[in-house]
């Protein structure tokens, strides 16, 4: 161990190289990328809903990154939509990419499930729709009332989940969260630049084909 200095410097150099290749260069490549044409910034209500998404910990079970066809066709077969590029997350700070797929990918949930009523039912009690679902229910985002006031959004529930003599109405938090989920839609047509920088896994690039 009498080459401590060189070991230390070597380790530092490796770390610096890895930082350069994995953090700094990719960061420099994408930091000035304009948002994808067609991508709309979140509305104030959607931002409030996004805050709910973060604080309820949705990211622990739901990813927001469907994989490209070159990686797998499984995401496509589930209707999760096209694979995104970095520019599709221009307004996401911090991003909610997620790593866990305990639940389905949600990046395009606003396109495949645009129904606010569906989301309200599902958030109040996922088992009302999917009897096998392991998603937690979020009853605290809802209120039970004898009768709905004007302006209240009543949650549609099957008889077995309908409280006796009461209606379930959504709180502002639930409505915000649903507004955010409905806004998750990256199915617009992506430009050639986005096509070029998309990670296509092991698929042959356009030049290599044929």
């Amino acid at each position, binding site marked *: 161990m*009498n*080459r401590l*200095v*060189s070991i230390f*410097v070597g380790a*530092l*150099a490796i770390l*610096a*190289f890895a*930082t*350069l290749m994995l*953090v*700094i260069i990719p*960061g*420099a490549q994408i*930091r000035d990328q304009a948002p994808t044409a*067609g991508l709309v910034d979140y*509305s*104030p*209500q959607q*931002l*409030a809903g996004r805050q709910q998404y973060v604080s309820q910990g949705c990211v622990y079970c739901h990813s927001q990154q469907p994989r490209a*066809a070159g990686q797998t*066709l499984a995401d*496509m*077969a*589930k*209707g*999760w*939509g*096209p694979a995104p590029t970095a520019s599709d997350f221009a307004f996401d*700070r911090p991003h909610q990419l997620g790593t866990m797929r305990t639940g389905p990918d949600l990046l*395009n949930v606003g*396109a*495949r*499930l*645009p*129904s*606010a*009523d*569906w989301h*309200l*039912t599902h958030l109040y009690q996922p088992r*009302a*729709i*999917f*009897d096998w679902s392991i998603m937690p229910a979020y009853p605290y985002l809802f209120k039970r009332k004898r009768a709905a006031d004007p*302006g*209240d*959004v*009543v949650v*549609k*529930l*099957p*008889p077995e989940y309908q409280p006796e003599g009461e209606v379930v109405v959504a709180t502002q938090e639930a*409505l915000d969260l649903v*507004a955010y989920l409905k806004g998750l839609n990256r*199915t*617009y*047509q992506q430009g050639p630049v986005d096509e070029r920088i998309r990670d296509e896994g092991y698929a042959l690039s356009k030049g290599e084909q044929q």
Partner: protein
Amino acid sequence: MKKTQPRDRPAQGKVDETFDPWEQVRPVPLFVLAVVFALAFWGLLTYISEYNAQKRGLEQKAEANLTAPVQPVPPAEVRSLVQAPGTANLDAAALQMVAVGKGQAWSCASCHGEAGQGNLNTPRLAGQPADYLHKQLQDFKSGLRHNESMAFVARALSDADMAKLATYYAGIDLRTRSAPTLGGDLARGRVIAEKGDWKTDVPACFSCHGMGGEGVAPGFPALAGQKPDYIFAQLTAWHEGERKNSPQALMEGIARRMNVEDMRAVADYLGSLPPRPSPAPAQAPLSASTP
């Protein structure tokens, strides 16, 4: 025990205990050190500038939030129903179900779009044969076709409701095509749609679904203009035995013999076709992404 000493080794007494003949003092070149520290410094600067930019952005956004009034969400019942072109015999009960829903059932339009155009794996309903739509709703209710969300809706519908909805959606004449979204080989898709692949006993799609994929009542749904993601999802579902409500198990067998690249190709090709065959197919506008 006597050790044999090589001749060229110095005598024991003269050896410096700390001397190591293979390890020499090689100072790290200043250049490498400089590079390492420069990289570290660059990384630090990048981090600081990113951090500041992010902080500024968040502050601006917070200000924007304070100034912009939060829009109250209108009640779910208040929805503007875009009158779909070419709808005849509009039935009040059907319109109610389409726009507002019935009982526990969410409205049809809330997922399938105001003109029944669909998106991703939520299918397009506009212009499908009424009998086909009616049978699918019945199958969702009976469990013959498996989809939890549609089963939830179908449980709230009577058979008469289903017939009304099927007629409503069959009557919508929507001429939009779907842009290919799957990156499939369109030329290969065309071959399968028009000629099939007889090496693997896959018949042409058009031999049953109509010469332009426009659907053939009562049993064969329209494929032209359908969402590619939906066609692909259904083909894989047939392939895996997840969906099995086809008359005489036709699609089960065909899809089982198809490979996944062909499914992808044919889904993209069929979606890009104009929904009704017309003398000049180029007239049909390519559908923009749904709202």
